């Protein structure tokens, strides 16, 4: 059903290394920062997420930095299912989407029924986007059909909500596996494929993202369907974010340079982007003291 496509690991690394040497400065950098902010899924996925923390996160999503008026809002906030209602309440009049992780996040170690219930619950609370995890254990033991069926059933459970499929690439072992999982998720109906939960290291890395982008490209070339991409976890600096944007542009073209097809899953990245932004505008290197913690 899904072919195993061999990956030239050295070639991938060299391509990434070349792309990382691009120097993006001044106006282009400001444009890229603007885009990165508009593509951001501002995320908090901690057991300690309190009501106050979610409120703070949502307000930051709406008004990333009040001292500069022209700063755009982020694309979405990403929270646990039991925090969706609260986020929805705060963000209902805005353009910001609410993404929720579901399906026994982050391990995915539960029955299909519980995963489906998890998705139903998140959607009924008002989630616009569902971030599911695949069953890595099943994938690694070769039960590809089971993984495929799970994804397609969860896609059905999502209804109108967008489905992002988290491959948790740090647990998949090889680039070949990552390519195969990407193809599998795309064929099973994913709207987005996403690298990581953020709970496992290594999370998003450029070679992994390039392989996933190639899967998206090949799928587009053969079917004409545009699947989105979301690297998540470990992206902390604006410089990294801009490198990812270059990678996307070079692999998929400008169509994907849009929040509807590319997202960053991040929490601390937002502050770094804002600091770089203010630095570009004022010429002063910034201090974290002047930016909110969450």
């Amino acid at each position, binding site marked *: 059903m899904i072919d195993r496509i061999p990956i030239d690991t050295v070639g991938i690394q060299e391509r990434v290394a070349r792309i990382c040497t691009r120097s993006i400065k001044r106006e282009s950098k400001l444009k890229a920062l603007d885009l990165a902010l508009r593509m951001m899924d501002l995320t908090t996925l901690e057991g300690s997420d309190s009501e106050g923390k979610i409120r703070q996160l949502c307000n930051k999503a709406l008004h990333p930095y009040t001292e500069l008026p022209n700063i755009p809002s982020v694309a979405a906030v990403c929270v646990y299912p039991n925090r969706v209602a609260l986020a929805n309440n705060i963000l209902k009049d805005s353009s910001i989407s609410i993404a929720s992780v579901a399906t026994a996040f982050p391990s995915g170690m539960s029955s299909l029924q519980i995963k489906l219930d998890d998705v139903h619950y998140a959607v009924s609370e008002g989630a616009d986007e569902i971030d599911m995890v695949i069953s890595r254990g099943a994938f690694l033991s070769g039960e590809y059909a089971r993984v495929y069926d799970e994804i397609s059933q969860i896609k059905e459970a999502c209804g109108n909500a967008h489905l992002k499929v988290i491959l948790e690439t740090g647990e998949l072992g090889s680039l070949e596996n990552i390519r195969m999982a990407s193809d599998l998720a795309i064929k099973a109906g994913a709207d987005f494929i996403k690298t990581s939960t953020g709970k496992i290291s290594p999370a998003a890395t450029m070679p992994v993202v390039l392989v996933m982008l190639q899967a998206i490209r090949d799928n587009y070339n053969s079917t004409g369907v545009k699947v989105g991409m979301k690297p998540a976890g470990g992206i902390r600096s604006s410089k990294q974010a801009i490198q990812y944007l270059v990678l996307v542009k070079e692999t998929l073209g400008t169509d994907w340079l849009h929040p509807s097809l590319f997202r960053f899953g991040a929490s601390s990245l937002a502050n770094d982007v804002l600091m770089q932004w203010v630095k570009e505008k004022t*010429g*002063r*290197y*910034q*201090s*974290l*003291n*002047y930016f909110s913690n969450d």
Partner: protein
Amino acid sequence: MAKEQSSDLTSHSNSMNSIPKTYKNYINGEFSRTESGRYYSVKAQDGKHIANVGLSTKKDIRNAVRAARKAHEFWANKTAYNRGQIIYRIAEILCGRREQFTTEMILLGYSREAAENEIQACIELIVYYAGWTDKIAQVFGSVNPVASKHFNFSRQEPIGVVGIICPETPSLLGMLGLLLPNMVAGNSQVIIASKRYPLPVCTFAEVLATSDVPPGIVNIVTGSKADLIPPISKHMDVNVLVGDTSLDADFRIMCELESASNMKRVFFWESFIPLNELNSTPNETIAFCLNSLKDPYYILYVQEVKTTWHPVSE
């Protein structure tokens, strides 16, 4: 005598027996080249090229401040006694490398006697300040009389990241005079080295790297003041700027003005020694300089006072 030695050493450094050394920045415990890739030539007194030293830019300042900020908490949370031990260790290592410093300073035009005097003074100053770390709170902390039923006390705490603008001369003693009070205070620092005499400051980084000073606490950047003072004075994550009055008035005004953005404290202490006295710096001048640098109040200026009200019952 001095002149002879100086030319001997210069020709020695150009012979096949020794290889020319590249002096680099010292950032986050690593010797890194400047981001700019530009260098300037440091010349011996007779005009011969001694070494290329980096012309750093605002990016090097940015990296240094980032390293200093990251390291600050670790240094500030060490016990005062431990900080004293580490600072004392710098003196031990400097002692062992006396000859290396003397050689470099002679190359720059010092007489052997003047070089040795300055290095001796440096060692003495380090030992002096090493002793202060665990005494600041004892001597300057206070229990304050208040009218209510409170135990009210004040103590000094580190302030954060300090930008140090070294005087051109005496480059080593002047740098230490500005650096040590900040280290004792528990701050982490970014040092802009003397442009004209950078070698002793750069070599001091080797002392730091081989003593127990954690990476990032002291960062040293070389280059032109015109390139480095604007970014550090504008930097929002720098809490204090210190220098001395030998710095051009324009730069001092710039520091004052730009520091308003994040309310940096700015101190320019009385100049140590006039530039033209370098070659003939008499013992008395070094002695005077050393004496005026031995002053615990330099530490207090770069600390914050925290006052705590603690309720007490009868």
